[in-house]
């Protein structure tokens, strides 16, 4: 079983829908320990992505679509999340260049590349209460799933589960990167908004796989 361009497109559409639905929630999380704009930023970014998806040519590869998402996010999100998510999709795009279909190990590699991009740009380590926490656990889950030879649908579900758990696990942490780091101890008890948006986006990826995977 593999996923292809339709999966990436559906993933993007579902991401846009879920981020729009959770705009206020993400804003509230960011208001508690940041500046309150994360929901707005992500919604603006994926609304811009949506506007571009209709023009994607028939023969676009997954890599093409991921690159389009990357450049659109970079030029529309702003803030910290814009360059970080932008870089993530850019690296994801590069990691699957020239492939039409993605199997489990390609997907795990895509996530790993995305995460590496985020870490390179933002210099955050896991445990510093950022989106890196969610991406890192998701990558681990994906690699393990691929090693167990599970199908993309299963792999993506495990990755999403892991990201959700990781987002929840940011709550007791002190932040060491991003705006929440200004708060010191006061960030304890609050979930990191970027980790939460990552969890939402990775759940969208899993749902998209169910809807679009050939088997």
């Amino acid at each position, binding site marked *: 079983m593999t996923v292809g361009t339709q999966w990436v497109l559906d993933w993007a559409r579902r991401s846009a829908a879920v981020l729009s639905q959770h705009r206020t929630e993400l804003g509230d999380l960011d208001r508690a320990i940041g500046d*309150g*704009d994360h929901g707005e930023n992500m919604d603006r970014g994926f609304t811009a992505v949506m506007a571009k998806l209709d023009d994607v040519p028939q023969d676009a590869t997954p890599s093409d679509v991921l690159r389009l998402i990357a450049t659109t996010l970079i*030029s529309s999100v*702003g803030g910290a999340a814009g*360059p970080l998510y932008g870089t993530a999709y850019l690296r994801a795009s590069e990691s699957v260049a020239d492939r039409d279909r993605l199997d489990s190990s390609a997907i795990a590699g895509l996530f790993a590349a995305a995460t590496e991009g985020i870490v390179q740009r933002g210099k955050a380590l896991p445990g510093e209460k950022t989106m890196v926490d969610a991406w890192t656990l998701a990558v681990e889950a994906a690699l393990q799933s691929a090693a167990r030879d599970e199908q993309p649908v299963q792999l993506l579900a495990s990755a999403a589960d892991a990201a959700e758990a990781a987002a929840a696990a940011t709550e007791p942490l002190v932040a*060491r990167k991003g705006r929440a780091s200004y708060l010191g101890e*006061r960030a304890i008890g609050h979930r990191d908004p970027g980790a939460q948006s990552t969890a939402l986006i990775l759940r969208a990826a899993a749902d998209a796989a169910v809807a679009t995977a050939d088997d």
Partner: protein
Amino acid sequence: MKKLINDPRAVTTEYLEGLAAAHPALLRISTHPAFVVRADAPVPGKVAILSGGGSGHEPLHAGFVGAGMLDAAVPGPVFTSPTPDPIVAATKAVDGGAGVLYVVKNYTGDVLNFETAAELASLDGVEVRTVVVNDDVAVRDSLYTAGRRGVAGALVVEKIAGAAAERGDDLDAIVHLCRRVIGLARSMGVAITPPTVPHSGEPSFVLADDEVEFGIGIHGEPGRARTAFAPVDRLVDELLEAILEDRPIAAGSRVLVVLNGMGSTPSSELYIAFRRVAQVLASAGIEIERSLVGSLVTSLDMQGFSITVVPLDDELVRLWDAPVHTAALRWGR
């Protein structure tokens, strides 16, 4: 939420349009992408000074565009760094062949977006250098965190950089000068009410009637600590203590003090706070050689203030005194 605005998503655009309508001789704007440049940009042979960041801090940065200060300002959405595209567009609009300096406040978003913009502009043949302002001593442990924030010190860096560019300094010299100022400038602030972001409509935090946010930032992010409300003299004392503890200033030194309002603080209260600053510094033997009191680096409608202290030497005094003609700061012409 009641605000004197129209569509919450149009505030930045409409602000720029109002600014352009009020100051046609001073500046020109572009709304898509959003940026402001001085009326006579590009100035051939002069290093261009560009700054930007999230909106909501007005008059910073757009109100500082004009002769003697910024060549361009790039406002993002409220409290959100602009994306690279408008930064690149503004960069090209002001490059007079001598290079462009980015004055960036130290926030992850700003740093990353300006970084990308600098790369892109360089690809297009513009020489770009960046200085990152991080004057806020409220943030501790900066070694292991996102580091100190840039707050009202940015205004000082922009003024000094603009004056140096106007007198003909080259890009390297201005970068060097700015780093020196950044090494000297220290700030800290306090708030008694939160700001309300237009598109959310909710106050960024909630303070009880007997609480203040001490060590507040300028994006509605909570401060270093929530402490008890106190007479303004006490708040000033505590802010100055933190500032002078971070970078001690010897008796006999001359300094610039910026007593900055956070957006909704009455001017009279800023002067009452300044009075105490003057008392405290005088008793420490520190001479206030220059001062600026006003709401200049703000956080929407937050009530509060920050204090910035910058030790001065003759060169910095000269550059500070050099003529400036912008919407929000004007002297010498």
